[in-house]
Structure formats: structure tokens, C-alpha cells
């Protein structure tokens, strides 16, 4: 039995699907951020797996994943700061109750 490229892409695909589901159905802003992390993580897996299987001597996918991890960390830190600030003002993190900018 061989471990092929396809076998590594299937968990990544399911992880991305879970992220999409959570992103669309969750109402808590922090839960939405967690779903976003799932999606970003599955993309990182794809970069690494394609790099490893198709271009094993080179490091493009690895560096893309490295930069994606750094940018995702910065983005999450800033988003959580914004969420905590919103909670301080509105006393809630439910996206259906924070709609002052909507209309």
C-alpha cells in the first residue's frame, strides 16, 4: 500500500469543508475565527503536500506555509483584540446582535 498524494489531500479537503460549515453557521465571533483557522490550516497542508510530492528538492511550498502561518498568527491576534474591544463596548460577541454598522 502506497501513501499517495490523494490520501493526504482528503483530510485537508474535509478540514476545509468543516471550516466552511462553521464559518457559515456559527454566531459567536470567536467560533467564526476558529473555523477560519481550520480553513487556513488546510491550505497550509495543501502547500506542503504538493511541494513534497511534486517538487521534493525545492522549498517554495514550505516557505509559503511559513509565511502563511506568520500572517495567520498576526491576523488572529488583531482580530481577537478587535473582538474583545467590541465585547467591551457592546457586551456581546453574537454577530446577530452587533448590527449597528449594517443599516
Amino acid at each position: 500500500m502506497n501513501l499517495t498524494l490523494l490520501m493526504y489531500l482528503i483530510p485537508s479537503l474535509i478540514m476545509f469543508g468543516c471550516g466552511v460549515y462553521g464559518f457559515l453557521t456559527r454566531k459567536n465571533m470567536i467560533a467564526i475565527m476558529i473555523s477560519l483557522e481550520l480553513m487556513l490550516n488546510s491550505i497550509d497542508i495543501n502547500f506542503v503536500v504538493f511541494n513534497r510530492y511534486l517538487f521534493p528538492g525545492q522549498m517554495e511550498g514550505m516557505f509559503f506555509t511559513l509565511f502563511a502561518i506568520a500572517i495567520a498568527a498576526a491576523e488572529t491576534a488583531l482580530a481577537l483584540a478587535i473582538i474583545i474591544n467590541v465585547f467591551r463596548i457592546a457586551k456581546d460577541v453574537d454577530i446577530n446582535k452587533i448590527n449597528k454598522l449594517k443599516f
Partner: protein
Amino acid sequence: MESVGNIIMYFVIALSIIVFSVLTVTTRKILRSATYLLFVLFATAALYFQMDYPFLGAVQIAVYAGGIVVLFVFSILLTQRPGDDAAQLISTRRWLGAVAAIAGVGVTGYALFSYAKFCGKQLPAMGDIDMATLGHFLLSTDKWGYLLPFEAVSVLLLACIIGGVVIARRR
């Protein structure tokens, strides 16, 4: 032909990624959701180790599992009363989300399996990537150098620090 240990390790990683990512988005308690996310990130780090990228696995554990999950737990505890469930979802939105996710997974999975004959080759051999070559690639301006994105990321982190200070400052 792979070694048996490698195959067992693959199934452990793949199963834990699938099970824990489904649990992350379906559980009712948000703190449990963050914990399952931690398990998913650990399984991803194990996958990087299995792919012979030990540096990437270490970065994944240090940044994601060590930094981001702690941030998540802190902000959950700051914004949530203990024992609080996520409020009941509206059924139409849940169906909408499920249909969108399943349709996306179905289309992409069909595309994957229709090209499965190109994905049949096994893991090619690769030498170890030592830190010296990695650092040379990261700080060179040659053809495969990454100095510009490296500096761009450092400027981005600086902007992120300033933004975090400005946002979190008490007025």
C-alpha cells in the same frame, strides 16, 4: 512500498484530523471547540513531521498550538460566562451552511478523484533540510531567495503590534 509504521501513523493523523475538525464545528461549548482545534493543529504538526519538514512542524506547534490557541482560550474566557452554550442555531442557516460545505467538498472531491491517476506516485526521496540552507534561502536575494517577503512580514508584524496596542488601549 511504505513501512507499516508510516502507514499506521498516516491513518492516526488522518483520522484525528477528520474527527477533530468535525467536532470543532459541531460542538456546542466554545471552549471545547478551541480544545478540538488544538488537537487538529497537533495532528497537522505531526503530518509536517511525517513529510520530512521538521522545522515547519516545530513552527506549527510553537506558533499555532502555543500561541494562537492560548489567545483563543484567553479571549473565550474574557467574553464568555462559564457553562454558556452557543445559542441554538436557526435551522435555515444551518441547512444553508451544510449544503454549501457539502457541495464544495463534493465538487472538489469529484475533481480530485477524476485526476486520481496523476496522484498515484509514492513519496519521493528527499534529503534533510538543515537550518543553514533554510536561513540562506530566507535571507538571499537570488532567484530562489525570500528576503523581500521576509521583510514584508516583519513590517506586517510591526503594524500588527502597533494596531494591537492602539485597539487594546483603554480610553
